[in-house]
């Protein structure tokens, strides 16, 4: 069966102010895969995602999204994005939960972009799915961190994206919320054949859910399945045998 390439990077490199942030990243992600991007702080995880989304221009190399060069990519409705910094937005922002969730539908619309009555169904569906219907008329700034995160996840999911890109989405969630979030992602991944890219620091947890792991430390250290990660001697050299064992054993499937 012919697989559909959703994301392809070729020798992707990025320098900022003369400093090499990422170098020579090459990988391919097929439709329906769930990729966990892991690595230490400052390893270039968020930079990689920003390069994939065309928010940064690579110094070298190229990114292909759904077979199109990211420079010329226009099918943004296929992509849902949840940025890392939930705290970056103004806590007193006067928009309601429903207004924020509806913004996720704009990518599929042409000028003048309007949220129509017919979009109400998708908004209601995703709000029910994430259990935020009861707070639909509350201002985003009035919510707890976990609730805000669920609203932003709803915004990323509302258009039914084929590729979901999430930058540390579970940091503000409690264990129960985290579990429900991963169940949601797995449902999206399994039932809708959605492709997911997720940055996290928790290798063990992502290893349970992701079909592939990409370990980054300014360059690509590892790209493969969790089982391969646990058996990789390169990773043993990188982490030390004890740490690798802890990561793999504690979260053993």
């Amino acid at each position, binding site marked *: 069966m012919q697989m559909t390439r959703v994301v392809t990077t070729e020798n992707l490199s990025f320098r900022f102010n003369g400093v090499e942030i990422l170098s020579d990243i090459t990988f391919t992600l097929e439709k329906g895969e769930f990729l966990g991007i892991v690595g230490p702080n400052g390893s270039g995880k968020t930079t990689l995602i920003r390069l994939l*989304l*065309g*928010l940064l221009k690579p110094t070298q190399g190229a990114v292909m999204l759904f077979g199109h060069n990211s420079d010329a990519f*226009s099918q*943004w*409705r296929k*992509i849902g*994005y949840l*940025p890392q910094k939930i705290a*970056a*937005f*103004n806590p*007193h*922002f*006067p*928009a*309601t939960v429903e*207004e*924020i969730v*509806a*913004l*996720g539908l*704009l*990518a599929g619309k042409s*000028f*003048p*972009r*309007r*949220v129509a009555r017919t979009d109400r169904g998708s908004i209601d569906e995703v709000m029910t799915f994430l259990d935020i219907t009861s*707070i639909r*008329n*509350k*201002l985003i700034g*009035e*919510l*707890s961190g976990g*609730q805000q995160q669920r609203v932003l996840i709803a*915004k990323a999911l509302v258009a039914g994206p084929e590729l979901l890109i999430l930058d540390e989405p579970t940091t503000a969630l409690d264990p129960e919320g985290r579990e429900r979030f991963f169940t949601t992602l797995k449902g999206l991944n399994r039932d809708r054949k959605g492709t997911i890219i997720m940055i996290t620091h928790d290798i063990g947890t992502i290893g349970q859910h992701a079909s592939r792991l990409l370990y980054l430390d300014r360059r690509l250290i590892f790209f493969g399945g969790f089982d391969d990660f646990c058996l990789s001697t390169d990773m043993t050299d990188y982490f030390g045998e004890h740490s690798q064992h802890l990561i793999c054993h504690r979260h053993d499937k």
Partner: protein
Amino acid sequence: MDFLDLFSHGFIQRALLAGSFIAALCSALGTFLVLRRLSLIGDGLAHVTFGGVAVGLLFQAYPFYVAVPIVAASALGILKLIDKARLYGDAAIGIVSSLGIAGGILIASVAGGFNIDLFSYLFGNILAISYAEVWTSVLLCLCLIIVITLSYQELLAITFDEESARTSGIRTDRINRILVLLTALTVVLAMRVVGIMLVSALLIIPAVTALQFARGFRATIMISCFTGILSVLAGITISFVLDLPAGATIVLVNFALFLLSFTCARLRARNASRRPSDTA
């Protein structure tokens, strides 16, 4: 004199009409600027207006028409500095602002003789507003209503999170350019209402007043416009009756409305905190 006779004067009618439209412009634009932490762009562009007015007076041209292209170019310059030179917004505004005021002082010093004219622009004189300025404010207000109506969702998306807006395929650069150009034109117009020194008050105070109690983005814009217009109408009336400077009175009424809304919001929050919370 009967109080209502006040409104029979042509110059008062022009002041109230133009003042209301300019207040609506400032308040609506101010909502976007305040939420994007670009509040001081009005102050910066007002300082550039000072330079533009000085150039106009130097060449004995009508300062309004000379200031418009200079301020518009400066507004785009601020965007370029933020984007290309990777400066923070406030730093970029600071550079352009100080350049504008330095240019104005230099021209005034070299040319000499028009200090009194320049002074009138610094503190505004809405009662001397012309029919041309009234119509310009109406036209500009119409342009803004069209822009907001057609691009409401894009403006909301960019104001909430510009980066995410870009990943929705929204041309944020184009919307930003339109927004700062409208701000530039509005600032030049508002210079006649409250003067260069107080323009930023018209942009900032109605927006922060609305933010105290508005529920929803559209409601914030509407309430901001309402308080802006109310402060201009009340300010002009009070200033005429009590023989006070109109610009300063408008700003003080604006501030009084902010204080009122701030106090009400705090009282409401205190009452709400006494009730059991309904949020998880």
